[in-house]
């Protein structure tokens, strides 16, 4: 099967000479590699936006218990609704990702890389195994990688099984260990106590691809794009009510309106940025910037045209979370279910204003009291839709009180 590319713009990746990032890294000390990443201001492309250089520094400094070893994990459990840019990267730029993982291994002192691949991407596995085999044959993986004495690094692929929560890094690690995919308590963080209790760096597919680019060019080059707090380029998965859905590259800081104009979604009523766990932005706020300091995202952009019923949109997202909560902690397990029931009450016109206020209060509790990012972000869509489209929602049926 030859996947059809959904690339809509040229990617910066195309301009990077293969393996030039790894070559540059091999000529540097571990500290210098991390310094280059830190200088680039690269922040995690999975959505949380943690500074990659800081993460690597912590893992590099972490003490390994006797007999232990460090790990580099690539989070390819791309599960956020509306996100498919990692699929494109893995299909067309797998070498860049593996190059990034190898650089990470070199930087933190790990010999083992694991690609945690989303269960639904099983069809990509033969292709990825082929790339790995080719890299091993070219000594880009294995013993003394690319001739660097003492640097051994190899990568294996482990499949996920379709749980959204396994995109959360500690749940991912639990899953890697063969346990139920449930988030751990943090601290300790994976950089200290990760896979098998060992220091582990977990990076998103796109983050690792940018790592290779940054080493190939420079931290300064990367930082020159984007905004002061959100350096570099970002891939966006665009779907919904627009004429040209697909994967786009923009520098961070792009406004919602600029993006919509590019994708043929100019007349949109609202845009969901960041997937189900993200925020719903109404047309009045389309001048806002997509950047960590304004609207952060892992890259999912869902466009809602003028005809969309926003309560149905909210219901769709809440159904997703009621399906995908791991069920471990109370606020997320029971909270999402109560929010969905609330939406159903709104649909029937049976939700009083008083109860709606209770539910919005519950949303705030879920945001601060849930154990992991899933429950902490699952009320976002409900809250932002009820904030911006309250008149539409309350007007669609008679309100009980």
């Amino acid at each position, binding site marked *: 099967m030859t996947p059809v590319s959904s690339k809509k713009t040229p990617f910066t990746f195309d301009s990077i000479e293969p393996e030039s990032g790894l070559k540059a890294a091999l000529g540097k000390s571990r500290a210098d590699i991390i310094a280059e990443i830190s200088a680039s201001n690269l922040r995690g492309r999975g959505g949380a936006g943690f500074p990659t250089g800081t993460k690597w520094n912590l893992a590099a400094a972490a*003490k390994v218990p006797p007999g232990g070893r460090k790990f580099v994990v690539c989070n390819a459990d791309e599960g956020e609704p509306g996100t498919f840019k990692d699929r494109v990267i893995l299909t067309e730029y797998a070498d860049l990702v593996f190059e990034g993982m190898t650089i990470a291994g070199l930087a933190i002192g790990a010999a083992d890389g694991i690609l945690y691949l989303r269960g639904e991407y099983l069809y990509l596995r033969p292709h990825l195994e082929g790339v790995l085999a080719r890299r091993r044959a070219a000594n880009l993986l294995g013993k003394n990688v690319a001739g660097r004495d003492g640097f051994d690094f190899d990568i294996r692929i482990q499949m996920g099984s379709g*749980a959204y*929560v396994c995109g959360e890094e*500690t749940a991912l690690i*639990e899953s890697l*260990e063969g*346990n*139920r995919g449930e988030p*751990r*308590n*943090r*601290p*300790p963080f994976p950089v200290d*106590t990760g896979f*098998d*209790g060992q220091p582990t760096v977990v990076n998103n597919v796109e983050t690792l691809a940018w790592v290779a680019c940054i080493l190939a060019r420079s931290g300064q080059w990367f930082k020159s794009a984007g905004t002061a707090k959100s350096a570099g380029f970002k891939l966006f998965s665009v779907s919904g009510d627009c004429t040209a859905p697909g994967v786009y590259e923009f520098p961070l800081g792009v406004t919602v309106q600029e993006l919509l104009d590019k994708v043929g979604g100019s007349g949109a009523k609202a845009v969901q940025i960041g997937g189900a766990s993200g925020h719903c932005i109404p047309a009045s706020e389309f001048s806002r910037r997509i950047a960590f300091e304004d609207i952060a995202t892992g890259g999912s952009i869902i466009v809602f045209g003028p005809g969309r019923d926003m309560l149905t949109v909210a219901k769709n997202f809440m159904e997703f*979370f*009621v*399906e*995908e*909560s*791991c*069920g*471990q*902690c*109370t*606020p997320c*397990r*029971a*909270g*999402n*279910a*109560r929010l969905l*029931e609330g939406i159903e009450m709104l649909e029937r016109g049976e939700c009083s204003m008083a109860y709606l206020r*209770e539910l919005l*209060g*519950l949303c*705030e*509790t879920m*945001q*601060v*009291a*849930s*154990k992991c990012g899933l429950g*902490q972000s699952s009320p976002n869509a409900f809250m932002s839709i009820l904030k911006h489209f309250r008149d539409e929602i309350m007007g669609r049926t008679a309100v009980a009180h």
Partner: protein
Amino acid sequence: MSAEIRQDVVGDTSRAPVSQIPKLGKKATGEAAGYIGGQVSATIDGHELKVPLGTTILEAAKSMGIRIPTLCHHPDLCVAGVCRVCVVEVEGQRTLQAACAYPITAPIKVYTHTQKVRRARRHVVDLLLSEHYGECYTCVRNNNCELQSLAKEFGVDFFRFGHVTEPRFEIDSSSYSVIRDPNKCVLCRRCVRTCIDVQEVGALEASGRSIGTRISTYLDKPLGEVVCINCGQCINRCPTGALHAKDASDDVWRAIEDPTKHVVIQTAPSPRAGIGECFGLPPGVPMTFQMNTALRLAGFDKVFDTNFSADLTIIEEGTELLLRLYKALVAKEPVAFPQFTSCSPGWVKFLEHFYPEYIPNLSSAKSPQQMFGAVIKTYYAQKTGIDPKDIVTVALMPCSAKKFECNRPEMDASGFKDVDYGLTTRELAQMIKEAGIHLPDMPKSDFDDPFGTRTGSGVIFGAMGGVMEAALRTVLELVTGKKVENLFENANIVPVRGFDGVRYVELPVTEVSPTVEPLIAHLVPNWDFLKGVTLKLAVAHGTANAKKVLEDIKAGGPFSKCHFIEFMACPGGCLGGGGQPIPTSPEIRAARAKAIYDEDAASEVRKSHENPAVVELYREFLTDGPCGHVSHRLLHTHYTPRGKYID
């Protein structure tokens, strides 16, 4: 003779993810540079103190006298951090943090009851109630329920997010011992952590996800059909009524009220050390003699002390051990060593499931409960002239597994079901309350004859190492001809006592008695074969520790060289049993142990072979002696290799 203690390293039994085990003070070196002595400053609600690096917020607050409410937290278990009741505000953090799961590794400022915190906790309890079915006053845990307490503490006066009005799940009452009511489950997973980490049984695990999350057995099979060992440790740690023991008290009341039935009760050592807790007393206040009075008032015809059959067990099991040693050392016959104790039915079923190949190592002696049942329906029936079919034997046990044990099909040596009903400490407390009795107010009275002699050796069966100590008191005296008091101060064999998961003790036999006690003279000609032998003994409690010992034996490690090993399914031994009052904690178990050892120290007879009722039984009834024909028929049993694979 000297006792050398070589204490084993077994400590951490948790299979919990490494990240969930609080690393208390472990980081005090190396990375902790800058923190002198591994101490770190914690400011909680404005009060500052220094705590060891890695202390959780919950522990730090507790040490300052600040109470943070909890639900999924339990002092015996690894951290879960799932209920979110204990959330607190940490300065500089956007989200609230679970106090039970947050290790303090840097100076920290914590606020435990801000508006944000109080609202979140209240919401969490509201959400738990929105998933919880059950009316408190029809619940076995009414007035002893952590969810109920939290609701009261947070002033819950309405169901903010609704509540469940109809049961959604079937109650699983397939087990003789443990009943599961998923309608009342709050998914704190204390049972799962107990079953997996404390017991390494793994009969319970979470399945499904989100609102479909359930505590489940393998393939959702009935509990009675899976590898559950009936230890009931999950019951002791369940915060609600989702897990409870199968209550026999209605059947017992019926027997008491039936004028044709002669109802006798035997009471094990541990319930008397715990039952006071059900009446508001602090742990560790023994209620032995008040309980005797209460039981008679409640209507039992005779009240006997299980210590009698505990002593009987020692004679039978001790003789079996000496015979195994004789066979191995003199007759050079192949004998299974080490010999394992068999009085803990949870342990026995654990072995049958997970290590059936070691069944030959289990002592064939029945447990004290079952020996007593068989003796009552034979010897006692004869002696009193009561038809055994009219005798109902009830056993008061600290144990839920005893309910399974008395229902084992092979336990009918008397021609009848040897023990008709097993009652837990909790069930008896309920019966006593139903009878309108406030136990602590009862006058004291003694046990009934002929099985009423209180012996210290029997009573210490309730504590970890107690069976071993009782066996040693008898075996050492028989073999050396010397009083145990001359070997150990006050006959307290302290090396085998304590709460460590596993103990290993070596006892060199330097001299032997020139004569053999008449009771067993027909079995062993003399003791010369034991001279110079170093007895290697071990004690393990909690089946996770048992597993460690068995794996060591499998691998040919030091425990494979042992002669005798005491195994108890429950942490702390019987005093921490699954039928004991709720809650349980290391402190509560220690207090109960003290009550038990105090009773031992105050007993006139402290050695099984000196129990006059036991001596008389062998003289009058078991005339061919310990491990003889009659005793084999009545007092010994066989086991069932069950395996761990379920169809």
